[in-house]
């Protein structure tokens, strides 16, 4: 693409793909950047294009028709010279410049080699998705304990199952597709421990009933899991993992309404791998330093404030997908389209021609948002989850800071948020910069206040040599 771009899109998951496709349809020049080896993000994660035959994953996916349509639109955009697709590019900073935005990228197509560069456009759309939200428990740092998203990524991206006897735990509807995917690859899924009670769904029946497709998808998993004799255990949790060099067993307990283990219900189950996840945490690292307003969402996350057109509070900056509130792929696609329509309108371009009218997209987005909110309320983090911890439980995996050290920082150091805990204990100061332990440390120190993620001026590690080469 020789002419300057009109729009930068960061993240080529469902939201970013839909946004890029819509902007292309409206005649814009687009640069689409993603750290992965293929478009699709986490939801539509695929092996790189050349490896699709060797690693078949189609049966693990949902909504592939939509994915393929978006892929075709992107291919057409590339053929027309209006889409520059930058895969294996990691964005470490996004900043405002006089006439728009600059994103600072590291090209890792020939990893581990790195080349730093800068991409610019008048408008920026951030669709960086989310990652699994974690709560620590004794033994969660044993090898073989993964996030549920990690199990799924290995399956969808590499065709690999991380174990042969797997227990899943946490909360949220994502546990089901991962269980079904593992089972379909011959893995024995010994338990799916869902902390919430199904009756919680009945408290918000409206939004749930208005999303029949999601019901159908859920029913599909239930059938698949029943057929493979996977035990779904509501109101239980994995409260501990045991093993030496690798996890060999989990402790599973029934939960009381507050989430504390019901005495006498604990049982050992032998496993060789575990998947845990407590919903998702939006990936806001590029948005926070840009000064976007944030708000609390129903699932306890901070999310970016956007208006109906997915405009953030920063002019020229748009967000779509999980950064605006975790809600799944269908919502993300709708938001991506709406965001791109706003970019078109704000750039003085005509709306994108398409089969679906904008009003229809808007009402679908509203419906999916209501559904996501209901889901979040039905799958809360159990208030008493910290009763699973011992003082020796590692909370910050990187710096190996224990629950006891964090409790001491709170009691004796007066630390009342994760920033202060970080300064006093190093929790959150390591490689992952608190992405794994941040929500947990927040719960342990700040109680009921909303979680405000740490500001990370460097969104992903980058070698000093690559940066030095950029210096004039």
């Amino acid at each position, binding site marked *: 693409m020789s002419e300057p771009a009109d729009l930068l899109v960061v993240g080529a998951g469902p939201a970013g793909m839909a946004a890029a496709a819509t902007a292309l349809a409206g005649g814009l020049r687009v640069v689409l950047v993603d750290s992965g080896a293929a478009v699709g993000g986490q939801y539509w994660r695929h092996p790189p294009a050349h490896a699709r035959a060797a690693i078949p994953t189609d049966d693990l996916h949902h909504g592939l028709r939509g994915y393929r349509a978006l892929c075709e639109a992107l291919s057409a955009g590339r053929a027309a010279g209006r889409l520059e697709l930058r895969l294996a590019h990691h964005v*470490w*900073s996004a*900043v*405002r410049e006089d006439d728009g935005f*600059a994103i*600072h990228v590291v090209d890792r197509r020939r990893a581990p080699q790195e080349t*730093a560069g*800068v991409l610019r456009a008048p408008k920026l759309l951030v669709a960086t998705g989310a990652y699994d939200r974690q709560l620590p428990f004794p033994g969660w740092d044993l090898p073989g304990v993964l996030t549920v998203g990690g199990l799924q990524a290995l399956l969808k991206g590499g065709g690999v199952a991380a174990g042969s006897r797997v227990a899943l735990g946490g909360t949220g509807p994502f546990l089901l597709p991962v269980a079904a995917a593992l089972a379909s690859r011959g893995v024995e899924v010994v338990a799916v421990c869902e902390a919430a009670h199904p009756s919680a769904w009945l408290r918000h029946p409206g939004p749930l009933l208005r999303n029949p497709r999601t019901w159908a998808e859920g029913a599909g998993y239930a059938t698949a899991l029943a057929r493979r004799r996977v035990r779904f255990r509501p109101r239980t949790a994995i409260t501990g993992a045991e093993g030496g060099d690798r996890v060999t067993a989990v402790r599973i307990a029934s939960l009381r309404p507050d989430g504390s283990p019901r005495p006498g219900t604990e049982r050992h189950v032998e496993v060789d791998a575990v998947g845990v996840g407590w919903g998702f945490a939006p990936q806001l690292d590029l948005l926070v*330093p840009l*000064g976007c307003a944030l708000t609390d969402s129903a699932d306890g996350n901070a999310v970016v404030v956007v208006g109906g057109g997915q405009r953030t509070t920063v002019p020229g900056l748009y967000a779509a997908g999980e950064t605006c509130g975790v809600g799944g792929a269908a919502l993300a696609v709708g938001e991506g389209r709406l965001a791109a329509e706003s970019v078109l309108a704000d750039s003085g371009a005509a709306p994108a021609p398409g089969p679906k009218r904008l009003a229809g997209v808007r009402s679908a987005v509203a419906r999916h948002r209501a559904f996501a909110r209901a889901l979040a309320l039905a799958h809360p983090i159990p208030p008493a989850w910290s009763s699973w911890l011992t003082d020796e439980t590692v909370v910050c995996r990187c*710096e190996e800071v224990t629950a006891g050290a964090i409790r001491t920082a709170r009691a*004796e*150091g*007066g*630390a*009342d*948020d994760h*920033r*202060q805990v970080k*300064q*006093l204990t*190093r929790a959150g*100061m*390591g*490689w992952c*910069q608190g992405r794994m332990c941040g929500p947990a440390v927040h719960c342990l120190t700040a109680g009921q206040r909303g979680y405000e993620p740490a500001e*990370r*001026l*460097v969104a992903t*590690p*980058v*070698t*000093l*040599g690559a*940066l*030095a080469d*950029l*210096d004039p």
Partner: protein
Amino acid sequence: MALKVVVVGAGVVGAACAFHTASAGMDVTVVDRGPVGAGTTSRGEGNVLLSDKEPGPELALARLSRRLWDEAGRELGPDTFELEHKGGLVVASTTEGLAALGEFAARQEAAGVRIEPVDRVQDLEPHLAPGIPGGVHYPQDAQVQPVLAAAALLRAALQRGARLHKGEVAGALTGRGGRISGVRTTTGDVLHADAVVNAAGTWGGEVGRRLGAPVEVLPRRGFVLVTEPLPPMVRHKVYSADYVAGVASSDAGLETSCVVEGTRGGTILIGASRERVGFDLTMNTAVVTRLAAQACGLFPFLRGVHLIRAYRGFRPYCPDHLPVVGPDPRVPGVVHACGHEGAGIGLAPATGALVTAHLLGRPWRGADPAVHTGLLPDRFLIPGGAPQ
């Protein structure tokens, strides 16, 4: 009856003021709107330096402070705030630079600083780039973990009877003869006091105004880069001789002069940039790439090391780049202890001791008000008094 003192600010300087005033038996209340060390204290590298200071009032305070950090280490336990006697190594990039550095160091030595000229800098820092003509080793330079240090000093103050009050100072209560008699907070709390210490760091200008005793304290933005954790590769605080010029400079634009050092946690910290942009929080990627280039120039192995984090803070500086420590002649009872620019961590204990000495009217822990007159606020109040 014990003198009632309100210390405004729970950064490292406020904590040190609280520690020393409480140790002297005063009745102390520390007021801050946030937790301990959450402002500029948490944004520095934890420098306790003599090497970057010219002979003069700041160096005199720094020498005292260096000793008081050791005393604090003995009293509070050196591990409670990671006190490390690592030493500084200043390197010159050219032979002319080395000659200038040598002259500077000779003047420091005359003022009581221990210096050791180094011909082969690789003997001290094996991973330094080849071709560096030489440098000066400053064995007295040290480092602390600043938030832990502030927390330890504050905790010790509380053990000596001090109190912590969460709140933001809104204004002063005035008694007979215009003397301050306490402060009001924005939520309406009233704290009575015989003396109020302005240890509000970068916000010291604003707090001074609210107390009716304005001093000119301005923010000077700085970024610090943090690498992935590594085994020990850099032993000293290593910086280029340009750093001293940067500290003393009054240039409004961006200045960077590379400072590289390791930490207990294994990360390497890379500073230091200086920009006068007010309290602007925006990321400046040009600063990051410049510091990266300078650091890789000093230590080529850093090229393959990952930057994992960057943070920025606002150094509190006075127009003449000296801190303002001492009683305000306009409002009896107000004592300033702010404007330390990038040296607040290092200068904190001596500042606390000097404030205590001013309040007692006699020397305290080696701090003699009659000696440190160059830091008094009076210099700003006499026309033409503040050297620019």
